[in-house]
């Protein structure tokens, strides 16, 4: 449950005050966690989300049209680097212009000039997406410079995204990321939907983290209704979320092994991942844990016997542990991971990097420890999340291995408690107030913190800001390439564990 008292909401008198207040909060140590626009009758309401150790601050302002009918506010990016992509996204979707932004290029969608913006929050908007993408900008000028587009159709079975690598040869001096190709207009997909439909959409924002998105969305809805999730549901949510983490981390291990050309290790990790996904599907009927989490609780008890689930997990974890140990002793693997794609601590802090990417660069934030939801506060968490210093691909993988161990402990403990819990209820009723209500919710996805800000009007979703850790982290992706050779790309990309659907939105 996201306790309502852990969220502080305030409204700035005008956009200038808004920007200086956000700047001040970040200067004083708050973590910038997101920015989005909501269409209102008299303009665009900007909402900034900031995280402190144990609570969130929601800061709003109304941007009203100027004499030319345009919406302007002073950019946050000059002082808050992490706002860089959010301001581009807000420009794409809501048409708000961040004055002083270093480069307000389209990020999520290329709008056909003569049509309007999608304007999330407005019931009717006419928008037309341009079907052709102009060639990318060339930022680095120099003799012999050429641009290599990687994507949007990738060379293997991957999600569509484009990286423009501008290079004088072997080194990568600059990288442009264009995720817009697979933009699905996620914000508008939520609007007009019922609370129950909303969770189905949330599961599809970033399909590889379906459970985490369903949880963050449900927490937001539960916060605004005051619903208390029953104990068994709280435990089951942890089971699904942690199994999802294991599958994702194994996917990263598999891709790193593949990039290193280790055929046996690749198929071992792929098998372990498949085993985890099968366990999930035996528990809830879906390999991605979909339709298991519902606002107020869970859909029901697992169809698999709990003792059998525990046995299966122990066996999988034992195999994972041994193969992980071997991988981390295999020189041909480590040589490619060590020192590759370094994100130094201070850069990570500036980008407010989340999840394993942040934690491998000594950023300690993890929702499960800092802002525990569901049953996390009752379960045997280690004293602190695993943190490393090196900030390279190896550190990101090591963090994930430790998280897998922690996940196994959590799942086993949750299964055991489930067995002893006498209260059989699975789901609390969601009663929403009439009129407008707002709630925020979060969860720790395998990629890092997922954050939802939901506005409902008479129990119908009016605006839903679904912020994946993938979107937040990918903005810092280009940072880690300085000086790295072209062949490291696959390793660095895999080590971010990005779900591109969650980026393109």
């Amino acid at each position, binding site marked *: 449950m996201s306790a309502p008292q852990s969220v502080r909401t305030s409204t700035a008198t005008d956009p200038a005050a808004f920007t200086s207040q956000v700047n001040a909060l970040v200067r004083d140590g708050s973590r910038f966690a997101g920015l989005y626009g909501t269409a209102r009758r008299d303009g665009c309401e900007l909402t900034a989300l900031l995280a402190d150790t144990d609570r969130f601050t929601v800061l709003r302002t109304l941007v009203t049209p100027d004499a030319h009918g345009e919406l302007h506010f002073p950019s946050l990016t000059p002082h808050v680097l992490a706002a860089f992509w959010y301001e581009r996204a807000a420009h794409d979707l809501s048409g708000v212009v961040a004055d002083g932004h270093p480069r307000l290029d389209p990020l999520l969608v290329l709008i056909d000039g003569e049509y309007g913006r*999608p304007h999330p929050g407005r019931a009717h908007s006419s928008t037309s997406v341009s079907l052709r993408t102009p060639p990318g900008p060339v930022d680095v000028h120099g003799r012999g410079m050429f641009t290599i587009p990687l994507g949007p159709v990738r060379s293997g079975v991957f999600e*569509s995204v484009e990286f423009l690598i501008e290079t004088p040869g072997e080194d990568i001096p600059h990288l442009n990321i264009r995720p817009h190709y697979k933009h699905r207009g996620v914000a508008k997909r939520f609007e007009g939907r019922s609370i129950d439909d909303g969770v189905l959409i949330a599961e599809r924002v970033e399909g590889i983290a379906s459970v985490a998105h369903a949880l963050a969305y449900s927490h937001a809805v539960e916060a605004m209704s005051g619903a208390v999730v029953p104990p068994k549901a709280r435990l089951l949510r942890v089971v699904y979320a942690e199994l999802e983490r294991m599958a994702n981390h194994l996917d990263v291990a598999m891709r790193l092994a593949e990039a290193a050309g280790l055929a046996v290790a690749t198929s071992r990790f792929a098998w372990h991942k498949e085993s985890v996904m099968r366990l999930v599907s035996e528990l809830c009927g879906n390999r*991605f844990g979909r339709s298991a989490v519902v606002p107020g609780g869970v859909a029901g008890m697992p169809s698999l016997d709990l003792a059998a689930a525990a046995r299966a997990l122990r066996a999988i974890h034992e195999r994972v542990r041994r193969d992980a140990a*071997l991988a981390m002793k295999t020189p041909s693997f480590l040589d490619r991971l060590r020192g590759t794609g370094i994100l130094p601590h201070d850069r990570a802090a500036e980008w407010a990097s989340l999840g394993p990417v942040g934690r491998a660069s000594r950023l300690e934030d993890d929702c499960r420890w800092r802002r525990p939801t569901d049953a996390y506060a009752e379960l045997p968490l280690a004293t602190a999340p695993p943190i490393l210093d090196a900030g390279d691909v190896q550190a990101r993988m090591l963090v994930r291995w430790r998280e897998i161990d922690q996940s196994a402990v959590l799942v086993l403990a949750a299964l055991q408690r489930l067995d002893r819990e006498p209260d059989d209820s699975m789901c609390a009723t969601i009663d929403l107030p009439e009129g407008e209500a707002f709630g925020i919710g979060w969860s720790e996805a395998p990629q890092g913190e997922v954050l939802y800000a939901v506005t409902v009007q008479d129990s119908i979703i009016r605006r839903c800001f679904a912020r994946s850790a993938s979107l937040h982290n990918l903005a810092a992706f280009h940072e880690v390439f300085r000086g790295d050779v072209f062949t490291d790309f696959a390793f660095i990309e895999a080590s971010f564990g990005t779900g591109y659907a969650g980026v393109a939105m």
Partner: protein
Amino acid sequence: MAWVTRGMRDGRLTTRWPAQKDGYYDEFATSARLRSDAPALADDEKETAAALCPTGAIAVASQNGETSVTLDRGRCVLCGRCVRLFPDTFEWETGTTRVASEAAALISTGAEQADDLKHLRETLAGKVRNLGRSVFIRHVDAGSDGSDEWEVQALANPVYDVHRLGIFFTASPRHADILLVTGIGAAGMTEPLRRTREAMPEPVVVIAAGADAVSGGLMGRSGYTGGFGAGSIIDVDVWVPGAPASPFALMEGILTAIDRLPSRRRERRGRT
């Protein structure tokens, strides 16, 4: 080298499907469908059933004054609402995936349905006749939620190991026989998808995999990014439902497309 012995330690991991049944596939729901023994619903119940489906997969059709309910597998995202609320009318389809040559053939009516497979084989015969023992697949994500790609990638893992069936993935469209499309067909992917299709040498078999690619699923079908499935952008030959299409469903789709499904399985598939 330690990895070599490790690879052998756990014995055979690979499914024997399609030569033999696979317990996991047999348990696995690939879509909801109408029960063949379903009692008729009252008119208001029909409307309720249609309204509860989040993707509009359930429809009330009327013909000669008679109304009946249909369920479009191509739109079903397996949310389970219909099966839970009207268990006498709807049920899960397990152990098989209805693969079709036209999207309309994915519609379940509860009545015995003419098998579309014969039609599918006839239409595709010209395209697959010259395929060698190995077929090469080019995959394109046209706006998925990311889960579809995990399932396609899983085909290479030792459990499904599609290489044993002569199925390979290729980066180059020029060497591909099959184009496998996932995702809703988002506006931004229109051109990249078309270009990939055009770069492939004829004949090409195009498979739309998963409800997103078949119909737009839950994330398409409206709005400024469009997303009416792969078929709204390029010609599709084979439609495979699922949300996402599981590795078994993908294998069934691919093997059906190249007409390499053992005949025993084909017979089982004749029902609704």
